[in-house]
């Protein structure tokens, strides 16, 4: 049960989810240099959107059949909120002092969280999320839950799709150009506003997938689940090198594995027997972030950029 391969697998699953959310931070940051603090809440609303679809479907429907519909429902909610936030909260502040959009993001994050808390029926308590079934598959000594298979598959599909999109499509090239030099990108005929909207939309889409995966994995979703998950995912994005989509995924995996291993093994280190366990996982994730910022501030895959206020 607590073998090293099992821990690595657990870390991989957790890390896939962090990576999916981290994509949203990293894409938006890469293009407009904005930390969209509300991204954790976009992830959360995606999960609630999917749950709403599930509740609207007939009772006893097969979960595998419902899953695509739930994903679509969650994606619509998340993408609409992400794009709306860009259009109405962030865009008017372009060119404002750097602090202004950050504070707006915090306001947005609170407002979204509370909107669900206040108006989503029953959301002041944790809401049950449908399950894929509890019998794990076994791969050698490793037990793999069905929801983890979904999670990894979704992460792989999303990442490969995104990489192909950015690398080969016209819009993908426009995205790269906008990230590198927005003014010059406009001189090429690129509608940078549209590119920014697309970046927000892709972030929202991936966050919704992660939201559904979260619900399937933990069986419950809450109005404030976006806070911790968002914090972790942002850590993952910074770890991997913010602005770099591959970095986001890598950072997610590293963070997930580090967290799983820290939970399992830190307690074995002499003198630290009380600092292992789930309760300290976030603390170790944070320590990892500080260490990475100290030794490699640009992140694992990030390029050295001039320090900037």
């Amino acid at each position, binding site marked *: 049960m607590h073998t090293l391969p099992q821990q690595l697998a657990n870390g991989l699953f957790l890390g896939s989810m962090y990576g999916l959310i981290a994509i949203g931070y990293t894409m938006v*940051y890469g293009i407009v*240099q904005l*930390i969209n603090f509300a991204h954790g809440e976009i992830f959360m609303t995606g999960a609630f959107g999917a749950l709403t679809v599930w509740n609207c479907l007939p009772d006893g429907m097969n979960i595998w059949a419902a899953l695509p519909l739930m994903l679509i429902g969650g994606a619509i909610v998340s993408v609409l909120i992400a794009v709306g936030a860009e259009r109405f*909260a962030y865009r*008017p*502040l372009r060119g*404002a*002092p*750097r*602090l*202004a*959009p*950050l*504070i*707006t993001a*915090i*306001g*947005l*994050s*609170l*407002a*979204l*969280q*509370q*909107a669900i*808390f*206040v108006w989503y029926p029953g959301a002041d308590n944790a809401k049950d999320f449908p399950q894929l079934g509890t019998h794990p598959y076994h791969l050698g000594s490793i037990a793999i839950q069905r929801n983890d298979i979904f999670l990894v598959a979704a992460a792989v599909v999303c990442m490969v799709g995104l990489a192909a999109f950015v690398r080969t499509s016209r819009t993908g090239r426009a995205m790269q150009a906008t990230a590198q030099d927005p003014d010059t990108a406009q001189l090429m005929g690129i509608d940078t506003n549209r590119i920014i909207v697309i970046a927000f939309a892709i972030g929202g889409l991936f966050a919704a997938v992660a939201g559904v995966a979260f619900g399937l994995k933990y069986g419950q979703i809450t109005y404030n689940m976006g*806070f*911790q998950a968002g*914090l972790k995912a*942002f*850590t993952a994005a*910074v770890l991997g090198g913010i602005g770099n989509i591959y970095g986001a995924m890598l950072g997610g995996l590293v963070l997930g594995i580090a967290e799983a291993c820290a939970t399992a093994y830190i307690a074995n280190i002499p003198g630290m027997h*009380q*600092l292992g*366990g789930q*309760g*300290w996982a*976030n*603390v170790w994730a*944070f320590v990892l*972030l*500080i260490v990475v*910022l*100290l030794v490699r*501030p640009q992140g694992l895959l990030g390029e050295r950029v001039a*320090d*900037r*206020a």
Partner: protein
Amino acid sequence: MTDIPLTEPLQPTPLGTTHPDAARSDSFVTLPPGVARIATLVGVAGTIVSTFMSWTYTSAFPGDLTVNGYPGGLQVLTLIGAILTGLVALGAFGVKGLTWLVPNRSPNAVLLLAAGTFATTWYAVIAIAQELGGLANLNPGGFVAAVASLVLLVGTLGLPIDRQPLDPSGAEYYELGRLSENGPARGTYRWLRQARLNHGELPVPDPARAPAWVQYLTIVVVAAAGVKVLTYGLATGYTELFIGYLILVVFTLWAFIAAGLTRQFSKITADHRPFAALMGVVAAVAYPFVQNNEHWANLGVNILIFGTVALGLNIVVGLTGLLDLGYVAFLGVGAYAAALVSGSQYSIWSGVEFPFWAAALTGMAASLVFGVLIGAPTLRLRGDYLAIVTLGFGEIFRIAVNNLDGVSGPKVTNGPNGISQIPDLSVFGYNLGDPHQFGSITLGRFANYYLLMLVITVIVVLVFTRASDSRIGRSWIAIREDETAATAMGINGFRVKLIAFALGASLAGLAGTVSAHVTYSVVPNPYQFSGAAPPNSAFLLAAVVLGGMGTVSGPVLGAALLYIVPEKLGFLQRYELFAFGVTLILIMRFRPEGIIPNRRRKLEFHQDEALLPAQQALGDGTAALGKAGA
């Protein structure tokens, strides 16, 4: 009756920047000028008369509005609003002896006061109809009030207004031009542009020309009025009255800004800063004596603690431009440090009992250490990283104190149970837990702590102002404005930022030491990122942003609002955080400088324009200020 036609450009002596293209534009509602003025005055008269009539049959509505010939409850607010509107209107129309009320002669102030009076009155009338179930519950007086205040509002909407000039960079011209291409949008846009009132940017006579005694008296009167207005608001016994009060206060303050009064007043306080500060302190000391009630004293302590922490955060956010999202953790570090050395039997060092000064230093030192630990690795990086690391730190702090209970981790903080039974402080042999007698007034436990906290607040304010006026303060602002340029000028960005961060952290730690004793116990729960009640990091940030970044009074005012409004509007509880998030978004969009804008930046960039000596005798203004004192 009028000697200054309202449509002509203004010629008073300038104090501050003049906008050549600041223009007095069309009114919102087209009325002949005479009609608009008469409607305004008739509306004022009618509204005043209505408050002496009965508004409803039953005394079921709180405040007893049934009596003829004597205003009560919300009627008093309407009466005050109407009288103020009338006086300001006459001042704006140029009636001798009243023009001092509108130093910049802008009719905007009249419009804002009329809107406040209208909103308060209609709120009262609608509340009566709604709570008692129908318009039938209104007496003729209620209808008279509604109609008269409507006449007043329409009349003032017929007055010309001063609008904000267009943004001098091309963006707004561009926007205006683009909109003019599609018809219906244009009307809306024009209306919105008009709605952007000029918030006191118009020139006003320099109050420094008034005799010194008038200026001192003005400060005294304003301080006294401030305490009076605040205590009236706190003493409001029912929600309806508080809402009415809030509406009227907000509009009145806004009108004073639009009239240029606040601008003159801030010039006076700037010229007599020590005296103004002294009066502020006297007013604050008077509070527990005037409002002699442990509940309000407790609120007062909490506001001061929260306000002090917000001031510390203001060094970090407002002056230096660093976003700290886990600031409440430093308050927590201070509180836990103080609790551990307080002699509480639940502390792991239960034998240790430091005197207050030592405990305060311990709390500050502990916060300082954490501040440096967090700041040193991150302050070299882009500011955005700091935001996330501090957010993480805030979270880690809460998790750690929750886990340090001897079961999930080493035993230090007792986990969720916290450290309780913290003994009361004793300062100079005074036990702050015991009531003390001052003449006929007894100060209870919270009042004692309030006074202690007031001393600490004064110290923190002094530290803040000293620091911000010094070399280091100018470096902070330079870093905030343009880090690259500041570094090029030879400022060591990292060191300067670290000092700001560490100083902010230790001030929060200091406040934390007192807060541990006030609340008897420290538990992990309050020290989170966001929650329904202050303090938490989001509320702290909001106090700074709402109040005005980089100012002294802004965060304290923001802190007071964030405590008083939820306290008074209990029914909002469930929606509070939502409203709060939305407010943050709207403030950033429409008034990013907060309620009290920091004038310093302006002064630094427009030194030459900003303090032009008065070229002309004050005339009306002097007489006016004389009246204010009388």
